């Protein structure tokens, strides 16, 4: 379930660096400020791009890999930019029994990404969640903070269609690009 890192355009990279630097100024250079820094940077940028992590590492005088280790340890940190719409597939006990993992597979296939990743056009990001407290509606997918019940693979297509996201043409684009 390793989240694949996507490349960031270089103009955006520069902007991320500047933003990170600005945030860093308010913190002490002690190692214990690492997590508060990460939270604040993610609060600003929405995620933790590579250039932000290297900036932070340099500021705290620790190897960048240590920052990465912490970022991957905690679920609250993201390595990919948030999409315009967030898709969270419930894999709690009830949803699991009702085939939540099949729904997850459908999302993965339709969006062409793995959990904790974002589509290239940054329209959708995909993640899993362990129970959102409405087990009677299982299998549940939380779409932009709204729990949708009975999301089986066909419903996945329906939800995407409602966003005007034509997966068929998307797929076609992809195959042409290849």
């Amino acid at each position: 379930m390793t989240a694949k890192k996507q490349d960031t355009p270089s103009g955006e990279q520069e902007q991320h660096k500047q933003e990170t630097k600005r945030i860093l100024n308010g913190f002490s250079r002690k190692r214990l400020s690492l997590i508060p820094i990460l939270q604040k940077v993610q609060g600003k940028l929405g995620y933790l791009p590579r250039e932000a992590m290297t900036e932070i590492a340099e500021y705290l005088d620790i190897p960048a890999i240590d920052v990465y280790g912490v970022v991957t340890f905690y679920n609250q940190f993201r390595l990919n930019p948030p999409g315009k719409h967030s898709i969270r597939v419930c894999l709690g006990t009830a949803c699991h029994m009702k085939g939540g993992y099949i729904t997850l597979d459908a999302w993965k296939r339709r969006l062409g990404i793995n959990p904790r990743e974002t589509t290239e056009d940054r329209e959708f990001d995909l993640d899993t969640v362990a129970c959102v407290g409405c087990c009677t509606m299982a299998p549940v997918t939380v779409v932009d903070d709204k729990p949708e019940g009975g999301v089986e693979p066909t419903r996945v297509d329906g939800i995407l269609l409602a966003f005007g996201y034509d997966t068929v043409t998307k797929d076609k684009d992809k195959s042409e690009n290849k």
Partner: protein
Amino acid sequence: MEAVTITLNGVEVSGYAGTTILDLARESGVYIPTLCHDPNLASTGACRLCLVEDERNGALLASCVAAISPGMTINTNSPRVVEHRKRILELILASHPDSCLVCDKGNRCQLRKLAAEMGVGLIQLQKIPQNDVIEEVNPFIERDLSKCVMCGKCIRVDQELVVEGAIDYIHRGTMVRAATLNDMPLEKSECTFCGACVAICPTGAIMEKERVYTGTATNTVTTICPYCGCGCTICLGTKDNQIVEARPAVDSPVSRGALCVRGSYGYDFIHSPERLTQPLIKVDGEFQEATWEEALSRVAEGLGQIKKDHGADALAVFGSSKCTNEENYVLQRFARGVLGTNNIDNGSRLYSAASRTGLGASIGYAGTTGSLDALERSRVIMVIGANPEISAPAVAYAIKRAVRFKEAKLIVIDPRNTPLTQFASLWLRPGIGTDVALLNGLARVIIDEKRLDVEFVTRMTDNFTGWTKSLQNYTAGYVEDVTGIAKKDVQAAARLLAGAEEASIVYGNGITQHTSGTDAVVAIANLAMLTGNAGRRGGIFALQRENNAHGACDMGALPGFLPGYQSVDEAENRQRFEEHWGGSLPTAAGLSALEMMKAAGLGKVKGMLIMGENPVASFPQPALIRKALSSLDFLVVTDMFPTETVKLASVVLSAASFAEKEGTFTNFEGRVQRLHQAIEPVGESLPDLEILLRLAEVTGSKMPYDSHQDVMEEIEDMVPFYRHVAYADTDSMGLDWGDVEGSSPGTRRLHKGLFPSGFGRFSPVEYTSPQDVATDGYPLTLMAGSGRYHFGAGSRSSRSARLSKFSPAALLEISGADAAELGIGDGDAIKITSAQGELSTTTKVSNSLPRGLLFMPISYPDSPVYELFGTVLDPQAKGPALKTCAVRLERTDGNG
């Protein structure tokens, strides 16, 4: 410290408070199995296999992290302990693949060894494979994390010993694995391919690439790495007279279980198909294979004829800073005693002559004053004109460890952004060639602020007052004007250096390869003496490019010195050797390396014997050198490969590599270390020592040595500071000069601040504006230096398949600012032109350079960067200025 007594398996044993149970058990000869423990790394208690039971309360303790406490009653093998260990091992094996039959780790696998020991065979737990992709794009390291047992040794060795920070744990719980930043492949990470993780991995998860599944080494021989001046101990694994692997020696005082990419993977030149396996004689411009008898009698005849017709001084001998002490000693005896000339020099003239001259004049001893341990203990380390990460990795590891784990402060003085700058408290970026001004400026600040070590200066040095006067001009303001370094930074550096209990100064070719090299070395020595750091504590660390640069000079492969720096001018010195060798020795100092070439060009030198050097590639102006060597009547070269120089020879004598011979190397610290033969010489090649002894016999001057031991014994007799190096002692890697200095009269080291002549001498040196930087018409300054993946003139590293594959060509590094101004991008074809020559190459934009400075690595035979350099010599040391020169650039790819 307080002693603590515990009961260990029923026996009372004592250790200091704070000792772990494991360490005490090992001291007492009690075996406890371990997996994640390594003596060079901090223990983490991750694997829990070292469990022991405290019988008082039944507690199970991880012995590698549990300290002893009074009254403990430890049982290392109770039924409970054994049961738990077995269960832990079974759990580890449950997620380990059953690929042992084909795994190249073979019998060195610690997991397999532990399983065998404990009798764990069939795993009755459900197997949970941790599938992973085998990473194998780079030519050095193959990672198969499905075999990983999460002991964390690779991560700890990377962070604690090498201090690179390329890998760490990512994710958590069952997903945890060792990975690089953003989980990139190694070649796209910070990884330097030092191979420390490969050597330490207890399983087959991290393996050496391009030799897996070829079977395991059947024998291991401990010897010394032949590349840089660090002299790391390496263990060569052999199989069927082939070297199949190189590993760091865990107990080496130099490398401590970590090598660099050259040491770990550069050994394959030994079995390169290009190796010369037979002597060659040139007949009508073509080489023909010959027997040793034919070749040596041809050499004896050729050299003899020239001596007869033109006198002994028409001959010159060039020794090698890559060959052993014994070989260089015999070579200079051959030159002086048999040929009768002092025209002998060695390859270190090209990079460390200034060091020898400058330090000799100041502290009376021509080399590093402390050991690597002393460097690592220092509170402040100043690195000037050196990039040890590349040129002396073991030194860089020590510096980084000192900074990261021992809170030392680092001052880096370098115009380039080197890997060490990120560890530095202070990074000064002086203009090229302004080191003398900066060093004098630092000294002046220290004196003005009365921060000098008064006691040391008064008791141990002379000419302080005279020298102080010479510093009048070097005010912080003047230094700022000359070097471009802000006043406050100069002051901060001076205060840091003078304020430290122990401070060390590390310098390298960035100092010695300038025309003002000797002056800068003197200025460094002045600064060290002023702060009381010349050997008593801290020290001066003069990095050497090649493995035996120190030794070759110690052995007298120098035009002006007999072995042990005994001047040839003095009859008394000569007499000692004459008595020993018989006959009379030439009196006047001979020609240095570049003077020989010049004399050859002028027809004054007519015959030359070159041992293991490649002047056509390593000297400035290759075209001129080639012409000079071609014009010789007779040229003999001993080498392993058909180098550019070998091609010009009349007779080529095929030499054996370091792995095929015995002898000693002296590393940059002055540590004399013993080589051990790992394999038989390839083909009919012979060790240089054997070649020289046979040659001496053919010329009718047989030397009374039967082996390298005989030679070393004579060296011990004749060279004062090698006297206490009993040949057997050089074997024990633990031997430090500190152990023996008390007992020997000719103290080699300057520990405790003892100067050989009794006093260190302050000498005034003046800053002169540099000649080797950008001028009119040549607006950029080109710097030449070592690259990580190649070495020296590249004769060996370019024939190492893996190194060449990973780093096939030299690229010109250019700063972003210059690139933008000249409209040059990454990978553009360009032509570099200097007053001396031109060179075509491709560019790489680098953010480590300041505006106006270019960098080009040496060691790539296809891009001979020394074509661009002139033959300007340091007037005192007679070494060429090979660090920088003025150039201009042109794009040659048509669209610029």
